[in-house]
């Protein structure tokens, strides 16, 4: 029963990791680099949600603020920074994304200060189900994540722009030859990635405490989940995120609270050594 409880706790955490990994894997698949600014962009989303929530008290408004503001931020960063680096080496993009992350964290720290802030959500009596304790708030968060995921997959698999995005991810040259405009695909990509990152940031902020360092800690789990799921595979990223979240919680009784964070590093190493394609990777067998 104890372990079942840990699994339930891990699932919510896993949804957050999964959303972050989805953002990482989308950028990796289409724009072809590991976006190290993902974590700090999540922090931005958390603060946007916090402002929306404080102003109105409504979680829906908070979610809207997180999605809208983070999507805009993501597009701005693309237009100002990443677009200028098209065709440059992997290092250039990696280092720049680290720089973007630092800059974001710095601005958030200056504007909002380093005091830890909390979402004030009403306390609700937890639901008991066969001895399992389930917080209704977690159910709401899970519903939010589910809506976000359905949205992303609809865009990816049921709209023309999603089809073009997948085409560029699959074979960039072929996509360009077929008359797909890369600029439009990139704009759509960064808006979508921003929205997903915003939702992930809001959920993380609601589960924990909002501070400028909030998102950075999620970067490694997000990378690990993206690679475990198979880089460029959206479904894989989400499932791997869930797996990782549960694995982290389940490991806590054995390795202690601090080392739970290093689980993602171990998973990362194991996947890269044993199955670099990840669980669902088909794009690249290269490691």
């Amino acid at each position, binding site marked *: 029963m104890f372990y079942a409880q840990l699994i339930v706790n891990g699932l919510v955490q896993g949804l957050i990791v999964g959303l972050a990994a989805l953002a990482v894997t989308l950028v990796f698949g289409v724009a072809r*680099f*590991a976006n190290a600014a993902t974590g700090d962009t999540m922090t931005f989303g958390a603060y946007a949600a916090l402002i929306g929530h404080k102003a109105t008290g409504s979680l829906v408004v908070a979610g809207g603020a997180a999605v809208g503001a983070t999507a805009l931020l993501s597009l701005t960063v693309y237009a100002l*920074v990443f677009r*200028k*680096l098209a065709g*440059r080496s*992997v*290092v*250039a993009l*990696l*280092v*720049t994304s*680290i*720089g*973007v*992350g*630092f*800059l*974001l*964290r*710095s*601005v958030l*720290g*200056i504007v909002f*200060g*380093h005091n830890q802030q909390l979402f004030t959500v009403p306390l609700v009596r937890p639901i008991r189900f066969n001895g399992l304790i389930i917080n209704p708030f977690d159910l709401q968060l899970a519903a939010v994540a589910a809506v976000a995921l359905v949205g992303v997959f609809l865009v990816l698999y049921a709209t023309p722009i999603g089809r073009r995005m997948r085409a560029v991810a699959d074979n960039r040259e072929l996509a360009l030859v077929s008359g797909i405009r890369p600029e439009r695909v990139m704009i759509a990509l960064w808006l979508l990635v921003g929205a997903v990152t915003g939702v992930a940031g809001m959920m993380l902020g609601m589960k924990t405490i909002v501070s*400028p360092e909030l998102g950075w800690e999620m970067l*490694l789990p997000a*990378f*690990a989940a993206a*690679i475990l799921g198979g880089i460029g595979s959206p479904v894989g990223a989400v499932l791997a995120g869930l797996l990782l979240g549960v694995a982290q919680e389940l490991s806590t009784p054995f390795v*202690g609270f*601090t*080392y739970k*964070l*290093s689980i*993602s*590093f171990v998973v*990362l*190493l194991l996947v*890269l*050594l044993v199955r*670099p394609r990840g669980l669902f990777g088909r794009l690249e067998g*290269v*490691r």
Partner: protein
Amino acid sequence: MEAYLVAIAIVALIYVLLALGLTLQYGFTGLINFGHVGFFAIGAYTSAILAMNGLPLVLSFAAGTIVAGLAAWPIGLIALRLRDDYFAIVTLGFSETVRLVITSEKWLTNGVQGIPAIPRMFAGISVGSLASFAVLAVLLVVTIVAILGMGRIVKSPFGRIIEAIRDNEDAVKALGKDPARFKVQVLILGSGLAGLAGAFYAHYITYIVPDQFIPLVTFYVWMAIIIGGVGRVSGAVVGTVLLMVLLEGSRFIRDVMPFISDVEMASVRLGVIGLLLILFTIYRPQGLMGDFTRR
């Protein structure tokens, strides 16, 4: 003022050692090491712990260097078969894991409280400023030896191969050389240098806590070599000097504007580092000491 300048010079030289290690790894061989601070931490903690248990400093410094270099070995074996960006992620994860280990293993590292009162270098010299000068002199000699050594390495057949690996790994393979072996060697050398820098740091500052070894330090060094010019020893030195001006200059800004708090200043520093990383990569990827004729 004199004591202050000596103190800055010592810290600057420690960063030069770190930058030289990264120049060897990234500048010459093209290894994207995002976990440099992990090896710095291993050197610092190894030397500090051994010295606290009575080992002479010469031996503890050597141990710090060797342990940091050896720590790079398994990482190299595992990670060097990976693509560039995966290597970056793995090394970043490694340095964070090192920080978790030194935070958690209280019996060895005293956890978040850190290790206070680490033995100083030249503790026998009772005049404080003279001891600092002695530390500076030793560091200067070590740095010059490291710079000359790197010059030798770069001109040697070994140096030609590692530069060839950076420029075209497949061509090196076609010539019958095994890039992975050279990469592991470079990784060990550079990490050993970082470990040595860590030992100097621990015994100069005399107090180490896990929070001194955050990834930001790695990117201080990255910023230094990117600003200075990647793949040039002179670039590593010039970049580090600029980094020190930036880090120390921000301290003076606080003297002029005391209303800025410590944490705010840390945020500003972080932002400046981030901005410089972005601007230099976009507009001047070859750095200040790089070739001025090409963009």
